[in-house]
């Protein structure tokens, strides 16, 4: 089964808040920590390869960013769901909640605030908040090597059910987060998501 791991990423808000003024008194800041989740197994539907028909529909695996744990049912308090390469958020067509997501470009560490241009969406008829398909959302599919790789520089911003903002980066689609060079798409087990995220519990847009 899945194992959970806390990861000291040490993102210091202090470093981000400018303190050039002589007289400002540093307010006590809470040091936000990035959490890394490893090997979240979320197999896709089974399909007959020759006809393309789905022979067994598998459930999404639901995850709560707020609680850093799996949620058993679609009706529960989850934020993001995984199945194969598809990522959903708990809203609209996907769930009863109000979670939303936006995909932005940058490195995880340098995204210090939710950009005003970020376009938060719910899942709906016109597509998922995190678009599916190679190159559209979080992953690239390399047609010559058949490897699924998280697009470097794509950061998912998620507004949780509780309304807090989180930033999230998918690190790997393969078991034990191997370097991509070591992935053999035929033999390396997948999909096993490894991702890291950082949540701002005070409801503001800065991380």
């Amino acid at each position, binding site marked *: 089964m899945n194992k959970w791991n806390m990861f000291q990423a040490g993102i210091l808000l202090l470093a981000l808040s400018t303190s050039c003024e002589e007289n400002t008194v540093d307010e006590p800041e809470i040091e936000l920590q990035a959490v890394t989740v490893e090997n979240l197994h979320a197999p896709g539907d089974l399909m007959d390869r020759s006809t393309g028909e789905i022979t067994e529909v598998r459930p999404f695996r639901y995850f709560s960013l707020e609680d850093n744990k799996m949620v058993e049912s679609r009706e529960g308090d989850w934020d993001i769901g995984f199945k194969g390469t598809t990522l959903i958020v708990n809203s609209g067509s996907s769930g009863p909640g109000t979670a939303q997501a936006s995909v932005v470009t940058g490195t995880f560490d340098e995204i210090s605030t939710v950009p005003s241009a970020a376009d938060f969406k719910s899942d709906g008829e016109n597509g998922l908040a995190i678009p599916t398909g190679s190159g559209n959302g979080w992953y690239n599919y390399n047609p010559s090597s058949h490897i699924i790789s998280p*697009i470097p520089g794509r950061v998912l911003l998620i507004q949780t059910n509780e309304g807090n903002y989180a930033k999230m980066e998918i690190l790997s689609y393969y078991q034990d987060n191997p370097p991509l060079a070591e992935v053999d798409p035929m033999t390396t087990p997948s999909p096993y998501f490894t991702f890291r995220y950082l949540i701002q519990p005070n409801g503001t847009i800065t991380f």
Partner: protein
Amino acid sequence: MCRINLNKNRFTYWLLGCFLFPLLSHASDPICIRDQAGNPIPHAYVKIGPDKVVPVDRTGSFDLPDNLEADQLIEVFAMGFDARQIRVREISELSSLRLTEKIGQMGEVVVAATRTDRSLEDLPMPVTVISREQIQETGGMRLSEVLREQTGLQVVSDHGAGLQMQGLSSDYILILLDGEPLIGRTAGTFDLDRISVTNIERIEVLRGPSSAIYGSEAMAGVINIITKSSREPFAASLESRYRSFSTMDLSGEASFNQNDWSVQAYLNRFRTDGFDLNPNVPGNTQAPFQATTGQVKLGKKSGKWEFRLYSRMYREDSDNVLQVIENGKGRLADMSSERRDVNLNPTVTYRPNEHWQLTLRSMTSLFETHSLTEMQEDGFVVDAQDFQQRYHRTELQLDRQLGNSQLLTLGMGHLLETVDATRYEALNRFDAGYLFLQHQWDPTDKWNIVTGVRGDLHSQYGERISPKISGMYQISEKFSWQASLGAGFKAPDFRQLLLNFNNASAGYYVFGANLVQEGIERLQSQGLVQQLLLDPSQFGALKAESSLAINTGFRWKLSNDLLFQGNFFQNNIFNLIETAPFARLTSGQNAFSYFNVSRVRTQGIELDWTWRLTSKLQVSAGYMYLDANDLDVLEQIDSGALFRRDSENRTQRVSRSDYGGLFNRSRHSGNLKISYQEPLSGINLALRAIHRGKFGFGDVNGNLILDDPSEYARAMTSWNLSLSKAFSNGVLLETGGFNLLNQLNQYEPSNPGRTLFVGAKVPFHQLVNSK
């Protein structure tokens, strides 16, 4: 001397502004003009004094008239050879006179560059000629093995042995056989292994875009394969090579020339066991295959008329095993494939006088492939693919010589093409018409200018105008500078227009541009479309890929025995066609089609240095520097929007210095060749080192571009050696090897490692004659 001449291959006294020296009285025995190997040169001529010209006879001999002053200067000319001056006093003591071939094939006639016969040294664009001797020296059996040893050319394995020139791939290189285009490409690649080399007389390599005379595909350059035409009354020979991997090549040739008739027949049989670089995976890296090539050339001259009928057929069968993985279990399947290629090329030439030439020619080709993949266990057909392409071209060319310094060429043609394939719907037909005009002009002795423009009108991609201008300035006898500026284009290929593909297991669709409208309507009616990603008005409007290129360089003949050449090139390519998603489907997958999206720039320098140390020993060296970039990637990098992952999957921003350009391009490549020829003993030795610098093989770190050291295949040098001995009766024995140091690279699947060969050639007509 005048360089522009319609009838280059004929005796050209009239051009010199001279008159024939009539009835000559004999003063001495005939003098024979020979090349360094001792063979007579029947096309030589001798100039005595300012205005007397004597041709040599069929045996290369001429008689020196008497009553000449002893210190009278005599000049001997022959096309392809350095002219030689000698005094009567000296010559009368000789029975033969040897000429030295122009270095670097400078004297060779090139057809491909202007569609008229011109000497290589007079062409204002970068051209090289690979001679019969050089082809023989490589010891190769297929065309890929000859071309990969040339400066600036790479052979890249991608659905066959594809050529790469000036950093552009096989898709953008036109391949001609005796001046007529060859068809049949798989995923854009023209497989050079389809061409056997034993009946090739010479190969012309024209760099830079030539769409101004050839239209589509001639964007990076043109390869013109010229097959042998014997002038002997009768000739027949058998030639065979055998090498590692049970590879066998057997060729027979026979030719006949009489009463202005000529017949030439050629048959080649090739077989190989293939090889396997990765024994852990079922199936061979290169499948075993057998191929048969046949060619018949008929010719008849009749006064001002000349008729030719060339025909060629090719058939290839291959078998391989592959592993099909289903639900994690591997099962073996047999794959068999067949390729056929037939073409027929009649030509009529009419020369009413020396100022006019009319040529009517056509090329009719058929290219077919069939492949079948069946499970070994139960014979279940995994895949069956058929492809059939028919091509017909008719062209009329009119050449008009204006004075001694201008040659005007007007061409017009019609092209009809059909394609029928498993993955395309119905039978598809394309029509095109074109017109080209070319002006060759020598305004002064030092200047040499070729301008051309071609207009194409195509049923598929509309009209295109492709201009080109090339100029050369002869700074001195020894040094000339040239520059050419030209436009190239490549029409969308069948797959980009017609593909109708549905990957059932992955759930995505790919539609050719012609089918995208229809395809999207069908998917919409089935309720499969979630969102259109592009404006529907963009659908189906696929334009030709186009380029603008400059080539500029020099030819520096430091002496008759030392030649240094250089060329800088830059190709700017717009509207490159790539797949892009146009609709998101409810399944979460995408529907793709082809769009003009990318921009690419390739630029670099090619340098060639040829040095004849003695009449027996020649050393040459070549080098190419290449820089090939996707301009959109550069733009993304500059705006800080391109990232990559390190070995721990952390994200970093990509900088310009990380970017290695396009995949499969070596920044540095080169060759060193040493050739030793001993005319008396017939011994010939050729040692070549062919270097290919490191190149990117594919993406490893997830951003689909070349930017990480782990994405490069290492550089390698292949040492190749050929040794041969020709006997006086014409029999030739040879041995040698490729890649003697057995360097392997898993990213070069066409390189089997060390390969050794033996061969023999038996010319029957010479054996009969020598008895």
